[in-house]
């Protein structure tokens, strides 16, 4: 039920996560480069047919050597970002570690002792995105619940004013911007751009418009998910 409810927001967030990544990772340059930094917070501009001015594209890397973090680094970074014990980042059926046992191979790890897989796959597999999103979503849900429960243990979503009906009182409040700022700094080691803050505020409005219970909780989970599952977060 929860996952079904997440489908549309996830799609929207996925698109925005792509934009988020494109603002900080090397992108092709020039008219044939394809993707350029969106100046309006929207999608992707093509300077050859959009008829609008676009800012200079990013200088691109000649080496093109991005690497997926894989199982252990992913677990450690999610744990560090969200202030969760690595052992608690994600479990299946409440007891089997996602990264260290169940999805190890999908996440680019090895299993030498029983499967004879002594060397990890060079590339990600078809199930890598699914397993990665599973890990991130599980951990984000845990962080959001703990933070929204209040108290001194809040790590990212601090001091949000949530009404009894589960809605944020004011999505434009400083506490919302502060939470987004904390999320970006802990996850991506940089503050968010104004566009990125706007994206996540708009995400809340979209979720609330869906008239489901606890939109503030859903927003916290999905904000976290969108940033931690972005290319900028998963690759280095």
């Amino acid at each position, binding site marked *: 039920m929860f996952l079904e409810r997440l489908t549309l927001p996830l799609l929207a967030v996925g698109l925005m996560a792509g934009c988020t990544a494109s603002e*900080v*990772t*090397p992108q092709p*340059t*020039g008219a044939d480069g394809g993707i350029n930094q969106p100046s309006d917070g929207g999608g992707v501009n093509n300077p050859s047919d959009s008829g609008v001015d676009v800012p*200079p*594209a*990013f*200088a*691109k*890397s*000649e*080496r093109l*050597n991005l*690497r997926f*973090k894989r199982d*252990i*680094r992913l677990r*450690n*970074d999610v744990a*560090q970002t969200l202030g969760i014990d690595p052992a608690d980042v994600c479990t299946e059926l409440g007891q089997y570690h996602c990264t260290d046992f169940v999805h190890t191979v999908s996440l680019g790890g*090895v299993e*030498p*002792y*029983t499967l*004879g897989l*002594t*060397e990890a796959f060079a590339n990600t597999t078809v199930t890598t995105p699914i397993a990665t999103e599973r890990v991130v979503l599980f951990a984000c849900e845990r962080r959001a619940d703990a933070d929204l429960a209040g108290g001194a243990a809040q790590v990212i979503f601090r001091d949000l004013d949530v009404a009894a009906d589960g809605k944020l009182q004011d999505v434009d409040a400083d506490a919302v911007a502060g939470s987004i700022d904390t999320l970006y*700094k*802990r996850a991506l*080691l*940089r503050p968010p751009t104004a566009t990125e803050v706007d994206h996540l505020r708009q995400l809340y409005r979209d979720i609330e418009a869906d008239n489901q219970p606890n939109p503030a909780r859903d927003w916290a989970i999905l904000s976290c998910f969108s940033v931690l599952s972005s290319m900028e977060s998963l690759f*280095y």
Partner: protein
Amino acid sequence: MNRLLFGALGSALVLFAAPASAKPIAPSALCDVYPESPACSAGVPGCAFCHAGTPPPRNDFGSMLEAQLLPAAPRPLSDADFRGALGTALQAVEQMDADGDGVPNLTEIMAGTMPGDANSFPKELGCDEGGTNPNYDVCNFDPKFVFKKVSLDFCGRSPTWDEMQAFERAPDAKAALHETLTRCLDTEFWIGQDGQLWKLAHNKIKPLQAIKAGEDSGPIPLGDYYDDYGLFVYSQMDDHDAREVLTADFFVSRKKNPTRYEVAGPSDPIGDQGVATEFRAGMLTTRWNLVLNTMFTAVPRTAAAQAMRSFLGMDIARLEGLVPVEGEPIDWDEKGVTAEACAVCHSTLDPATYPFKNYQGLTGSIGTYDPNRIQDDFRNEGANITSMPEAGVLMGVPVANLMEWASVAANSDAFAAATVKDYWKLTMGHAPSPEEQAEFQALWQAFRGRHNYGVEKMLHQLIETEAYGVP
């Protein structure tokens, strides 16, 4: 257990399936002509340099070259004729472009790319001047980028926001990078069980829990590979001499919480290691290695091939590292390896195998050195098998026994290059590309030179390379 048997069978099939009409001397002959080629810098090139897959079919470069090799002479050419004519033939095709990738053959040979593969050619790494990049200095060594990479590659996690802020305030960024690396090299992520150094060892040890002995033992305990991991990691840390993976006459005890490795004393719980000290050769003579790779064989070719693959970067099943020995193979165990198709590899492999002959695998007293092993356990394997010598040849160098084998291997360029290549792949995510060859060669030469085979010193140099530090 099935995996074990299929693995051994597979290796044998590959070796026995080698084709007719190949020239095992060709790789070394090519290196006589182009000793400065990166393909020859730490061994000899594989057959794929001239052949399409497994010989004899040739790729475009091999075909072009073959047409220039004594064209009027009848085929097959003798080894002497081939070697004598190769230089002239290579010279004749140097300025041609066999694979049509726009780069002359000679340029490719000297750049370390494949002159017969249109997808392999040297690329000039430039610098994109078409825009700016606020987060990455894509044209230069970028300390912030490297700080994050060092933390991820060696500590297993990104820096925190506070750590990144502190790094940006550091007066000497490179010094801060090296401090971070030093700290990370002592973490569980790097040296702990299943850490990065263990992962480097997996392919060399090929563990199999079902037959593990000792801690975490399986149902058929035959050998404890934790001893092998311990010795490997010990040799790679704290600037110990990395050659000890092949030359050590000791074992290593692993302590926990936190993980640390020490040369084992008499009271330390190492596995049931049965090879006497004077016959030990590092990871080649552990009980696990002998059980897994020698097993029941009189002529333990798999043990030699696995050692060459693991520590010299030469996979003989892929026709790499062929340096044939005159008069070999002799076929002591009457397996038919003198057939032309088999001799391609076995003229190199068999003489490299003889020094393993007295080490018991799963016969006799398991995992021991026994000078009567062949006489006692394999005398029916061939009419002359008891005359098989212990002395052999590795990479063209005569060796009297396995300790000499290990010494020749450990002091070779191939060992230094293979060791550094392991770390290159671990930290870069790929083998050295043609445009990275210069830095790679400088690195492994420094590893065996001023770093005195200290892996950690080498890694401090690695993180300062452009290949690692330019985004």
